[in-house]
């Protein structure tokens, strides 16, 4: 066996209220490609941030041994000096600067106080040749596609004399050609002795390229698989990723399902700035009265994009397809029209899209339905308080009064305010995007209870969630979305995490 380049021992990282990593162990061999797999929120990115010094030494427990010595990075700069470089999912390049300027940013080739551009461009050209990028060093980075930008990032890492390269979801935003090129490059780098850790949801890719795979679940290491072993198949990885028992974390419910309330046909959405990228591709789905329907999909599958584009075309461009409410075609091209049609959308990011945090519960509760409590443009203040008070009680929002600022509430209570706000618009369909993200377990149960009550009152509910157990626990039916396409639907009785994960990871050429 080769020598071990990296040993992460018993890494534990706690955020206020959440244990993101709980005694994780990771061992990487010199010169291998090591994949890390796990569900959304399993702790993969947190682990890599610990390794690369984003979370400085001392903010976590445990020990990192790199080349046999303990790594105590207090910043990214420290770990980069040791040869550990991370490339994040969101690329960190300056679009208006040239390739060469980006490559040497913070690390400029200087002659005295001036930058020696001739030497810089020459060195840049050499680096670009190493990563197989046929662009001149003076091209502004913003003119390159995402795939080429990724290569610039790798060239930048090479310039820093990288020994261990970490890639977080490198191919998530790439098309097939660019992905293939990138994977080939990683193989070449491996030959040159550069060790690589890759986080990916694309299991096919991992099977292709990785020497070893470590699976992380709920902040703990599950197992490490040797990919040379024929038993290490995609389904074997899936099993490791989801192998968790369902406990009684979900309230009981007897569904009473009625007519189809909401239907989307052939919904297609393009990326708002990259026009050739299709984010949602001819998706169709329906939800019945009293039914809770889930959408499962990995990060980047287009779940939120689908929901937001339906809700007032709030995402994307070049949107086509039809929305039907109660069998009639409706126009949802603005948020106002969508609300009128009876649709409500509870965003995955309540602080950014859901609440006005500097205002009180009362104002937030009525923000989407002011028309209901006003006449001739004047808001009826007493009625408003009455309504806010009603939702405070029925949602069991813990706050001293409805005049309390929403910015001071806990995550669970904020989410309840957002739910109250949308219930006030009296929708027929509620789209709940990650309804329990960032909420503690007790409050989650309360949110599930509220969702169940909504369904029991005859509303159609569509739930988007990254947590498969959550979908299995509350939904009557689950759609799977992969790379913008609907890849299947399973009734509750047939759905298991393994089957969902299989459908969620169907890659483009195999979809449908």
């Amino acid at each position: 066996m080769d020598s071990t380049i990296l040993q992460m021992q018993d890494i534990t990282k706690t955020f206020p209220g959440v244990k993101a990593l709980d005694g994780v162990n990771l061992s990487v061999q010199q010169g291998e490609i090591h994949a890390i797999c796990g569900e959304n929120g399993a702790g993969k990115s947190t682990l890599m941030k610990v390794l690369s010094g984003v979370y400085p030494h001392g903010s976590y427990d445990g020990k990192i041994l790199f080349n046999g010595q303990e790594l105590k990075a207090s910043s990214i700069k420290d770990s980069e000096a040791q040869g550990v470089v991370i490339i994040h999912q969101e690329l960190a390049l300056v679009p208006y600067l040239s390739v060469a300027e980006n490559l040497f940013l913070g690390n400029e080739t200087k002659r005295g106080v001036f930058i020696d551009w001739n030497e810089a461009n020459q060195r840049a050209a050499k680096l670009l040749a190493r990563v197989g990028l046929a662009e001149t060093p003076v091209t502004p980075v913003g003119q390159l596609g995402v795939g080429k930008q990724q290569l610039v990032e790798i060239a930048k890492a090479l310039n820093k004399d990288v020994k261990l390269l970490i890639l977080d979801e490198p191919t998530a935003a790439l098309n097939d050609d660019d992905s293939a090129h990138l994977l080939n490059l990683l193989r070449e780098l491996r030959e040159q002795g550069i060790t690589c850790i890759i986080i990916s949801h694309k299991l096919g890719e991992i099977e292709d390229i990785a020497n070893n795979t470590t699976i992380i679940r709920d902040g703990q290491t599950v197992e490490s698989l040797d990919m040379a072993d024929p038993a290490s198949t995609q389904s074997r990885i899936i099993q490791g990723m989801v192998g968790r028992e369902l406990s009684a974390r979900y309230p009981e419910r007897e569904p009473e399902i009625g007519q189809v309330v909401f239907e989307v046909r052939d919904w297609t959405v393009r990326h708002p700035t990259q026009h050739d990228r299709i984010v949602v591709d001819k998706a169709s789905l329906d939800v019945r009265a009293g039914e809770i329907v889930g959408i499962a999909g990995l990060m980047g599958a287009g779940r939120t994009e689908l929901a937001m584009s339906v809700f007032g075309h709030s995402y994307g461009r070049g949107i086509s397809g039809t929305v039907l409410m109660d069998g009639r075609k409706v126009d949802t091209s603005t948020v106002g029209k969508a609300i009128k049609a009876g649709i409500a959308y509870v965003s995955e990011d309540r602080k950014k899209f859901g609440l006005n945090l500097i205002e009180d519960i009362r104002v937030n509760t009525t923000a989407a339905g002011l028309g209901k409590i006003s006449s001739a443009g004047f808001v009826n203040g007493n009625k408003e308080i009455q309504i806010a008070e009603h939702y405070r009680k029925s949602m069991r929002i813990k706050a001293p009064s409805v005049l309390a600022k929403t910015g001071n509430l806990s995550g669970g209570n904020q989410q309840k305010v957002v739910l109250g706000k949308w219930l006030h618009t009296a929708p027929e369909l509620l789209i709940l995007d990650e309804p329990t993200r960032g909420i503690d377990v007790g409050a989650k149960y309360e949110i599930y209870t509220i969702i169940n009550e909504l369904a029991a009152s005859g509303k159609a509910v569509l739930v988007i969630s990254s947590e498969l157990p959550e979908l299995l626990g509350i939904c009557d039916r689950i759609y799977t979305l992969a790379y913008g396409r609907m890849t299947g639907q399973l009734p509750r009785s047939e759905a298991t995490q393994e089957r969902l994960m299989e459908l969620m990871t169907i890659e483009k050429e195999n979809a449908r």
Partner: protein
Amino acid sequence: MTLKSELKDIFTKNLRTSGIYIAFVLIVVLFTIMTDGLLLSPINLTNIILQYSYVLILALGMIMVIVAGHIDLSVGSLVALTGAVSAVLVIKTGAPWWVGILAAVAVGALCGVWQGFWVAYVGIPAFIVTLAGMLLFRGLTYEVLNNVSLSPFPGEYQEVAGGFLNGLLGGYGFDMFTVLIGVVAVAGLVWSQYSTRRGRVKFGQDVESMAMFIAKNALAAIVILWFFWQISISRGMPIVLMILGVLVIGYHVLTTRTVFGRHIYAIGGNLSAARLSGVNVKKVNFWIFVNMGMLAGIAGAVFSSRSNGAQPGAGNMFELDAIAACFIGGASTTGGVGRVTGAIVGGLVMAVLSNGMQLMGVGASTQQIVKGLVLLLAVAFDIYNKRRAGAGN
């Protein structure tokens, strides 16, 4: 909650909102002492109203612009342009006084449409659009006036900003009508406060203690009545004060009680959330600027009336007075926070500062230095308070 702890809160927990009132009182006391009481004399109080009314009118529109997260740098030039149009109509063509005023308001609103279009529908930052407007409207003013001042206005026109209602109901050494307006103002204030309080109690909300409620209202009543008494023994009720009063009440109601007002705060507080709540952001932004233009037209009419003519350089730096009034009055630089009442008190702080220093014979250069520092300190104080609140104390 006891009266004592509520009083303490005014100086601690609620300092962010109450700070401006405390500062105002301190400044008034300071200048009263330094001018041997001249500041609060009947004649000077009347003068403050006449002299600074147009800044207060501009602040009414500006507070809505700032709460929505924008800025308007063009209002000074717009005051000049609207005044010039009015002067050309009334002085040059001999149109009746009211035609001039209506024209000023209409031109102001039209310029607001122009700027609202670029900000709301094209999406150019208001800073740029109104910076362009500042130059554009100033240039148009020169064009309209052919580079020369116009004066004087006929008597009726001068009355708008310089006239008084006096002796309508008689009185012995004081004007009964002015006192009556003061009484009505107090009654209206107490009634509106009381009905809000009653509504909150009815729906089980916490309210301040009855003692605090009475103390606050009694204090306000005394100050208002005293103020109206002072001006009643001077020259009576200034017409411009009535205009201002109607506007202040109107815009206070608009911002606190209407759907449109709510939408302004929603946009400034969290633009994305407002959009996803179905607020027609473009439309609201558009009307905010139309409204600002209209108020600049009113201010233009008032200012031209007070200065009895139109000058190409009129209204210089007015935008900065109006903006300063809003920030001193507690508006947030990031939008979403600010009140009409705060902007008015902020405007009065600026007015008392200028007036007090003038009474003391302080030079114009020192006045500017002091005003600049006050603005800076007011915003620094606001940011300090925000941090304190953010730290959870």
